[in-house]
């Protein structure tokens, strides 16, 4: 039997068009042996939850640089729950002010990453979060 692959949805909610960070992360996760579903720009919370449902992912990685994280992230987490996927681990990366991080973690985000994060750290965090969930 083949080993269980970790499936990650990398999504960019909201209106900013800067997906370099999302692509760097997608590539790093691929190189770490994960299967990364990349959905493209300007996704609504409904679209992200729908993609997570159809792809049965273990992890959703969100990249937000627009400043709309406090509006978008809770909606996405709620949509995932409504679909019965409360087991999905949600990570967030982008330009997130220090003051907002605690609130987002309380909403259910597993971890928040800023610019300059070592991608190896992200891979390690995902692996340990998924094995804790299983």
């Amino acid at each position: 039997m083949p080993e269980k692959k970790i499936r990650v949805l990398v999504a960019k909610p909201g209106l900013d068009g800067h997906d370099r960070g999302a692509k760097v992360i997608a590539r790093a996760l691929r190189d770490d042996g994960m299967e990364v579903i990349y959905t493209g720009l300007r996704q609504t919370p409904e679209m992200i939850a729908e993609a997570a449902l159809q792809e049965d992912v273990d992890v959703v990685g969100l990249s937000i640089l627009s400043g709309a994280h406090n509006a978008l992230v809770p909606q996405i987490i709620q949509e995932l729950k409504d679909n019965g996927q409360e087991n999905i681990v949600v990570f967030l990366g982008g330009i997130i002010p220090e003051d907002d991080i605690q609130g987002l973690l309380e909403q259910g985000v597993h971890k928040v990453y800023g610019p300059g994060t070592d991608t190896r750290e992200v891979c390690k965090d995902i692996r340990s979060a998924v094995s804790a969930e299983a």
Partner: protein
Amino acid sequence: MPAELTSELRKGNRLALSRVLSQIEEGSEKSVRILESLFPFTGQAHKIGITGPPGSGKSTLVNALARQLRTLESHPKVAIIAVDPTSPFSGGAILGDRVRMQDLQGDKGIFIRSMASRGALGGLAAQTEMMSQAFDAAAYEYIIIETVGAGQSEVDIVNLAHTTIVVDVPGMGDDIQSIKAGILEIADILVVNKSDQLGADQSVKHLQNMIAMGYRGLRYAGGKHRLSSAMPQKQDEIETSGWVPPVLKTVAFDGTGVDKLADEIVKHGKYLKETGLWTQKAESAITDTLRKLIQSTLYQQWRQTIPDEELEDIIIQVLQRTLHPHQAIKQLLSYNKITRN
């Protein structure tokens, strides 16, 4: 609970379907039981394969096609299995076909599943067929299977799909390319996508010429038609008994020509059913599936008969050129008998 998952899937629960697909993809013990219970409900869906070189616009075409199929009178549910390559080095993959399929989000009658090829080389993944069975049992009338970007010999799709569509784009090569064996001759429908670009008419002409060359010998045998099995036949027989692959022009990006493509797919489905080829194709697909299952099952059984160190020992002998691989196979296959006796 496999039984619960199965009945939820049959009721149209999309999360249950999604979880079943994951089980199948992992090849779990549970998935075998699920597939067994789903099997009586399969055999209804029209499976459409889409293949062609990387960048020819397959995903964009699938996007437009799925939307078009949804407008058919029966308002059919449409499933999409999009296969992308797994990295041979890390085992990871980036599955990016959804990026081109954003128009389809929000329609609950469409279900897109991305799949990594996980080392399979024929343009599909090992479990693609089994995943299509789950969609079939969940009453998806059309299952569109998009292969990895294919070169010239990734032709596994023909064993799985009822209708195989090969996508080409203008400027992919001269007329010699179009008479080579391989991917072009598996097409039931040929599409020249991006046909608003220079050279589209020329590409259409090359493809039409290729088909015309094969037409005299067009023959249906064993459930598959092969342009290459050019046995001369009586002219009237050929004219009454063949599906001649149409060559269509599309611009997937804005949907041009996609209505015609959907029409041809429906027509091809009817043609297969009227001629009995639908059943013949199913038969050859089942034969193919059984062959693969027997191969993997026998391999696993054999693998248990021989301890790792014995296998390693024989590999080293081959490495040192003291044993030819053929001799090695003889020893490996008889290992069990020798030790038992």
